[in-house]
């Protein structure tokens, strides 16, 4: 028996402990946001947060996850309303085919959790592991900047004049 803490809910699963988290999420918990891209940790489509850090769910065996909080894209929305970051992705139309989007959003969420006002260079460096074959990267960067705008404005307002 493996116990997983996903989006603040506990799940007991009777699966092989070597099963990658991605399979447990999609096949056993019907959380289909994270996608299978390459299965080699090279594209980032399966990115979820474990202990508040982005990891490749396709290469994370569930045996390594006892007692560690897991956050997937399904856990971002509140009261069925998109989170500010999700809304920024919508506003910037930062998706083409959408396959990479869940992974992009999760990695971006980790960035904003650590650094609420990232520079463009910081965004680019942090998002580098996540690939988009449609070419939406520029919009993704814009979406992250948009999501950080309230924090940026608050910081600017607090500066002495």
């Amino acid at each position: 028996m493996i116990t997983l803490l996903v989006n603040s809910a506990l799940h007991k699963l009777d699966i092989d402990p070597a099963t990658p988290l991605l399979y447990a999420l999609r096949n056993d918990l019907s959380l289909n946001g994270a996608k299978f891209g390459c299965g080699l940790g090279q594209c980032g489509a399966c990115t979820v947060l474990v202990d508040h850090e982005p990891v490749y769910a396709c290469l994370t065996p569930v045996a390594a996850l006892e007692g560690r909080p897991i956050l997937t894209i399904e856990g971002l929305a509140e009261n069925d309303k998109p989170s500010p970051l999700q809304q920024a992705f919508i506003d910037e139309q930062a998706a083409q085919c959408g396959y990479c989007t869940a992974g992009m959003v999760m990695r971006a969420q980790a960035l904003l959790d650590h650094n609420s006002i990232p520079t463009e260079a910081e965004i680019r460096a942090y998002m580098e592991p996540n690939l988009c074959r449609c070419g939406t990267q520029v919009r993704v960067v814009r979406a992250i900047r948009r999501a950080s705008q309230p924090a940026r404005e608050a910081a600017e307002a607090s500066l002495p004049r």
Partner: protein
Amino acid sequence: MRLLRFGLCFAVLLLVAAAFFVVLSRQPVIAGVEAPPRSAFDQTLIEKGAKLAAIGNCYSCHTTRGKADYSGSRAIPTPFGTIFSANITPAPGTGIGRWPEEAFRRAMREGISRRGEHLFPAFPYDHYARLTDDDLHALYAFLMTRTPVESFTPRNALPFPLNKRWPLAFWNVAFLDKTPFQPNPQQSDAWNRGAYLVAGLGHCGDCHTPRNLFSAEESSRPLEGGAESEGWVGPALNTASPAPVPWDEAHLFTYLRHGWADQHGAAAGPMQPVVTALARADDADIHAMATYLAAQQGPVSTERQQRASAALARAAEVKPPAPAAGEELGATIFAGACASCHTGSAAMVPPHGINLALSSALYQPEPTNAIQFVLRGVQPSGERSGPLMPRFADTFTDAQMAALLRYLRAHYATAPPWHSLESKIRDLRQRKGPL
């Protein structure tokens, strides 16, 4: 009376020592010149210098990410503190623009700046002392034709008395061998060229030769494996090499040319920028270095041969080895996280990872490099294609990573267990640099 005589002797000794010290530590200033124009250097000479600079990888230490090439200021971690690299663009104020070639030659061979100050041996002039006048001339031409960028070098962060430069006069007397490279007439031209590049410009010993108490390379044990630096350990490149299958010329060439070799693994950590720089070097020079380094492996003993066959046989196994009692977590993590790239065919062809029975890092006496591979993975250099391994720093806890490495060490390397794995993982996790 006796006391007086003793006092006199002591004073004389002190004077002699002081005179000795003054002579040694004070080096003449070489007058600055007007920076020579680009037209002063022949294009083919500049190109020759560019290829030599690639072998020396001047770029890595003398460039800060995001700043102008060769403008210095990169923080170099040393066991004693942080040293900032010099600006070696031909900027007249903060670079080497006013340096005549004579000053450049002296700096390269003796570690003395144009102003007569001792340079810290983090700058490997103990290697560059081997260089020929011709090669120094070409390097000078290359550097003096880079874009001049004024950039002030921050003050080194070293504790007293290591922040003083005069003790280096004694270091140089004790450890600096100024003899030029001596070719060995018994060996081939390629061997000699390789020996010259490895010992001189390539300064391979900087990371791959053990150092003594004074942080000087032990000249009696060249390439016998270095201590940890920048969080990685430069493995032995001679008969003490940890590689399960002895290195040969072909694999060394592939490794230095492309950054990875099946039967051994990928260039990572401080070796990755070395390989990136080498991309600009000629095939012939890389072949020469491979020839020389292959010769350092010595004749392959029956015992080593058997070790190699055993490793190759393990690598040919299709299924991962069964864990012993207590190793289940390590085997489970391997199956879920590593197996998709690291099992099956022994051939290492990116994105397919090396079969771990052949990974040199798992055979090293210390776990440092193996831990770093798991923590940081192998990130592409951004300038060329090459192996890519994802980082697992956030995927696994220290205990999980230790369980994985214990399993790999026992069953792929079949080597005695590493000690204090968990604390080593904790320590390396906290090092600076991208994780």
